[in-house]
């Protein structure tokens, strides 16, 4: 096993955090122990082998990665509480700097972490959408409260008349400063990956390419013009280079589908067709001389009959 301790991406991705923590208190190092330390540990334990130790260390490393990831998420939540950087920022057109910071911090988040962020922002009296500087809507709850009517715009009711009415719980309304911010924040939420960050694989793009609602809308407006004609689709397909052998090998390499032993895939599959059957066409049964006497079933003569016939005795069945 490689000495993979210090090379963990998570551990090194926020060096200043770890430096700060380690400066305060000399904590036990969780880097991979040296061979000497391992040998020393094994000396006092006659039942344990090097393999046991490696398995234990491997699992310890995994748990440590999880803890590190959770620490990073917690730190990100604390950082995102401070956004937006200016109190007059417009949530519809956030500053470039804040947007980049926001998206970068969101990469390891799961939807539940994002919910925590919203909760924390509400505790600080700000709107649940990170790039919005306003306060969230606070309403006085009646004694039986908890729900309220919500009216849609004019003409949104059934049949295009009146207004649509929705009954929503107040917690859901109170998280945001306005419906627009609620939409923006929930749009971010659906893009996050459910998978915890330590289980994601290198090629997993979900959760990393996060678009703000405004960006996504701008993109969608542009998109239909590009894909309208058949020829452009064909061009796109060609530019993807699906038929290109080099490209497909690259792809296989990236996906881990390749191996030196089996170039076609993980398992060597040989298809062998059944040779018989296909050449002879079955025909209708034909009349044979022995069929005329009866006692045969579709040309098959039971053995006992056959014996009798060969002996020249009278077939009882034939006489009936």
């Amino acid at each position, binding site marked *: 096993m490689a000495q993979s301790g210090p090379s963990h991406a998570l551990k090194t991705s926020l060096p200043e955090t770890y430096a700060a923590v380690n400066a305060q208190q000399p*904590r036990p190092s969780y880097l991979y122990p040296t061979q000497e330390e391992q040998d020393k540990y094994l000396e006092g334990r006659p039942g344990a082998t090097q393999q046991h130790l490696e398995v234990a260390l491997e699992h310890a490393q995994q748990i440590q990665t999880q803890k590190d990831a*959770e*620490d990073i998420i*917690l730190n990100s939540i*604390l950082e995102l509480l401070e956004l937006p950087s200016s109190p007059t920022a417009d949530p519809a057109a956030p500053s470039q700097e804040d947007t980049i910071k926001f998206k970068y911090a969101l990469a390891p988040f799961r939807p539940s972490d994002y919910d*925590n*962020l919203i*909760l*924390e922002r509400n505790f600080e009296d700000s709107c649940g959408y990170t790039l919005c500087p306003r306060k969230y809507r606070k309403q006085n709850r009646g004694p039986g409260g908890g729900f309220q009517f919500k009216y849609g715009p004019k003409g949104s009711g059934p049949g295009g008349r009146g207004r649509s009415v929705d009954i929503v719980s107040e917690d859901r309304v109170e998280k945001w400063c306005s419906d627009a911010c609620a939409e923006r924040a929930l749009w971010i939420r659906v893009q996050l990956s459910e998978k915890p960050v330590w289980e994601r694989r290198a090629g997993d793009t979900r959760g990393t390419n996060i678009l703000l609602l405004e960006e996504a809308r701008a993109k969608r407006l542009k998109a239909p013009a590009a894909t309208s004609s058949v020829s452009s689709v064909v061009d796109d397909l060609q530019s993807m280079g699906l038929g290109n052998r080099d490209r497909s090998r690259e792809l296989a390499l990236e996906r881990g589908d390749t191996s030196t032993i089996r170039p076609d895939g993980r398992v060597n599959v040989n298809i062998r067709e059944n040779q018989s059957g296909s050449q002879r066409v079955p025909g209708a049964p034909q009349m044979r001389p022995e069929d005329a006497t009866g006692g045969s079933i579709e040309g098959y003569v039971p053995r006992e009959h056959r014996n009798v016939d060969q002996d020249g005795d009278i077939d009882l069945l034939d006489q009936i």
Partner: protein
Amino acid sequence: MDGDSAHSMEAEREMTRLWRTFRTVYELLADRGYEVSDNELVLPLEDFRAKYADPLGYPDRTKMKIQARPTDTMKLKYTALPSKANPNPQPDCGTIYVDFCPDSSGVGTKQVRAFNHLVDENNFHTGIFITQTPISPSAVRLLSGVPGRICEHFQEQDLLVNITRHELVPKHVLLSPEEKAKLLERYRLKESQLPRIQISDPVARYLGLRRGQVVKIIRKSETAGRYASYRWVI
């Protein structure tokens, strides 16, 4: 006038509830082995009101800060057995600090950070943070993440009654490292062969147990009079 009396009724109610919580906190400290004087343990409601009420009659939580030092017996229980690497071990306990959070709702990372800072600055070994409402998940993580210090959280309503005084809750006694070693020797066990108790168990939380400790649970038994069992804290 009606509004006034309704106000004072509510203030009275809150005062009484908080007084009961306050008393449980002292009982908790005494049960854990901290130095607590007898008149603090049986503080009457009148004295509590005189000491901690604000002009409107509501309790003033900012005044209610408790500090306590461990007794010698507690220090003994928290001192590890001397080993080759550490021939002269120091007790792993120290001054405890209890803080009541004055915010009535929305306790999040902001308050917890302030509390952590306070505990760290005054070099308290353990801190107990008591709030009126549940705290957010990130605040819980933040509270448990102070390196080298132990920070615990309780809600006021968790401590309204002292659960260990209930007749169905058996007596839990923490074993010292020496007693633990003797127990394992007597029964020829490894500690992992003992039955377990979760660190989040209400009584374990009340006693502030830590991972790896062993508690002795003494139950009444119809046939044997008393029956002792042991639990390893995980």
